[in-house]
């Protein structure tokens, strides 16, 4: 009897919560439609807390700027924009659970037809499958991990991210196969014979280190060792002592600043491997001004590869964007600011074409098709197209070095020459 009552309670509770969910869904749909005229919604998903905060704030501004420059409209439809945060204060960086939650939220909100982001490749790995099933177009300004779009990472990649078998994800940044090649090309130009490779054991860092290792071996650079570091260790002195014993000409680190990159650089220099004798090469994941404060003098002379160009090397449109941005916002332009702007424009153009074809609010599927149809796009990064994997046709990457406590452009590497 008592058991039966409990079951009834459960059923009633279940029904009630189902009603609540339905009710909420209805409310938000109503909210989306009542903007006065028809509207479309796009969201961005970036880690707005942690060491990358200065960077991601400018990215949100850049997306807002792109929308404002169209007077908040595409093809007569009002644009609603929401900025989601995939970082948690507790983690101090992107958080997989938060990433998944944001993706779920956007997948269920039918008003959303475009997704700009995420910033971290590991976050993308959790979000793409959800948004793939929801049929939502994604354009990332910053993910460089190769396995997200192309084979070359884990054996079952990239197919495991696309359960429907159709693609919905594209990126405006050059992927890590090219970034790894750029690191190897830099080392060859600097006459490096042997290298010790470290990674932070994350999707992005390990994947990049793999790509670099492949490229380095192809260029005939001897790989003396490979280690995965613990991003929360107090220091890396014993590791660096071991690396110094192997006497490499260079140390490569695949990873992000949040995983203690500054400590790693300090301990490398501290272990008797100054940057002018043993090169330190890292990826765009440590191309953040905070690194310089954290690592202090030890950062002088390190090299950082970046899957794109700094603002000084951008096209004429790029220079125009930099000027407009700087006149409008107080904060300093960061490496990824222009990429967020480019991603927003690609997305808005795609929505515009889809909306014109549909003569009103477009279907999500139509937006995906238009994103992938982006060809000879004349944007701030130059003139480029998406290939069938959703990767950019650009091949120029830049190498930054730290000089007097500042990142300065060292050289531009075109991996198409390799």
């Amino acid at each position, binding site marked *: 009897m008592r058991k039966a009552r409990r079951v009834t309670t459960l059923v009633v509770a279940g029904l009630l919560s189902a009603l609540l969910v339905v009710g909420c869904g209805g409310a938000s749909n109503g909210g989306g439609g009542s903007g006065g005229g028809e509207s479309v919604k796009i969201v961005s998903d970036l880690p707005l807390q942690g*060491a990358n905060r200065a960077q991601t704030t400018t990215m949100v501004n850049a997306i807002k700027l792109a929308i404002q420059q169209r007077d908040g409209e595409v093809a007569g439809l009002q644009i609603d924009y929401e900025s989601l945060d995939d970082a948690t204060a507790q983690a101090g960086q992107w958080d997989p659970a938060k990433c998944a939650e944001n993706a779920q939220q956007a997948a269920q909100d039918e008003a959303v037809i475009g997704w700009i982001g995420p910033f971290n490749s590991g976050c993308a790995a959790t979000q793409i499958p959800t948004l793939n099933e929801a049929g939502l177009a994604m354009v990332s300004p910053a993910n460089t991990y190769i396995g997200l779009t192309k084979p070359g990472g884990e054996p079952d990649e990239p197919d495991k991210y696309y359960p429907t078998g159709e693609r919905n994800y594209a990126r405006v940044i050059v992927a890590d196969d090219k970034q790894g090649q750029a690191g190897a090309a830099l080392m060859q130009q600097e006459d490096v014979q042997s290298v010790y490779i470290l990674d932070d054991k994350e999707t992005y860092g390990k994947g990049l280190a793999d790509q670099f290792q492949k490229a380095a071996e192809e260029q005939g650079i001897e790989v003396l060792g490979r280690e995965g570091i613990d991003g929360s260790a*107090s220091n890396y002195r014993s590791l660096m002592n071991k690396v110094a014993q192997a006497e490499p000409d260079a140390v490569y680190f695949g990873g992000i600043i949040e995983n203690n990159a500054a400590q790693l650089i300090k301990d490398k220099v501290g272990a008797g491997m100054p940057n002018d004798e043993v090169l330190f090469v890292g990826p765009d994941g440590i191309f953040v001004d905070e690194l310089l404060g*954290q690592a202090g003098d030890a950062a002088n002379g390190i090299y950082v590869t970046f899957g794109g160009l700094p603002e000084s090397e951008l096209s004429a449109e790029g220079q125009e964007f930099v000027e407009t941005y700087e006149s409008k916002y107080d904060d300093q332009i960061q490496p990824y600011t222009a990429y967020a702007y480019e991603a927003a424009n690609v997305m808005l153009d795609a929505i515009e074409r889809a909306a014109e074809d549909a003569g009103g609010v477009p279907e999500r599927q139509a937006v995906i098709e238009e994103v992938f149809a982006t060809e000879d796009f004349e944007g701030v990064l130059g003139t480029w197209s998406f290939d069938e994997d959703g990767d950019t046709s650009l091949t120029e990457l830049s190498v930054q070095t730290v000089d007097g406590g500042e990142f300065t452009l060292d050289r531009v590497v075109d991996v198409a020459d390799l």
Partner: protein
Amino acid sequence: MTTGGAAKSRSEALLQSVRASSWSTRLSAVVLAVVLVLLFSQAVQEPGQFASQLVIGVTNGAIIALIALGYTLVYGIIELINFAHGDNFMIGSFVGITVLSGTFVGLQFFAPITGDGGTLLKILGVVIALVVAMVVCGLLGVGIERVAYKPLRNSPRLAVLITAIGMSFILQNVGLIWKGPAQVPFPELISSANILPGEAVIFRWKDLFVIAVTVPLLVALSYFISNTRQGKAMRAVAQDKEAASMMGINVNRTISITFMLGGILAGASGVMYGLFNGITVFNVGFTQGLFAFTAAVLGGIGNLSGAVVGGFLIGIIGSMADQYIGVRWTSVVIFAVLIAVLVFRPRGLLGDRSAVQGGGE
């Protein structure tokens, strides 16, 4: 002839004990012997490298040992695993930064001791930072005990444990608001230059600094526990709270003092950690606290010498694993050693609680 007989009986006794031992003990003895032989052969092949790694292990271990003492002191007295202790350590390192960068509550407390300051000024700065952090963390320790643990002293032990975890989160969030989520650089006050001539073995001023702070603190703590009235009171409370209070010992005050001692050690190790590594972060208390807690358990929780031995052991095992096995296996190795020790000695290497409870041995 007599000596031969003695040797024979000794070897017989050895045989006897081997025969009596279980298979698992024999296996572990063999594994331990193999590991030691391998390490020894490495040490002979490349003595400089081995010695450098040993120094790194000892200095990393010293910091862990200081934090571990805080866990073990509190556990020895009230059998509580004070999870907030690691975060108290983090607060200590933040206080250190604040003092050394000269920006206390937004005020220019005194000119920042960075860069070109003279040696004397640097030493003064380090001493002041240490003292301030020790005082702040000591008081914080007492405060936490008053607010969060004392009202629950007669509740089930699980309740206090959960409160401790809650306190840990609160402190972490305080750190988060205070210094933000990114790693914070520490001023480089202590030289990283090698003291020893040549480059075979690296022993830096920083390593000397860690030893120079840790050893006096350990000596002072052991003197306090074994020779002072208050230390005797602590041991008495640890043995039997009720009997101690019947003897006229103020139990509440004694427990407060224990938390203060733990806090003082956390403050000192926090500043030391920052000056030694050059970077600290708001969740450093969790990761370092985990290793420190492991060290306390490894040595026998509640046992002061056990915490020190455990701390140094974890530091050395860590650096040896980094060198000879691979960085990605280091945590695995450390916890495998912990499990192996607990299988054969469930109370830790030196047994639990003997130092505080039984009188310092």
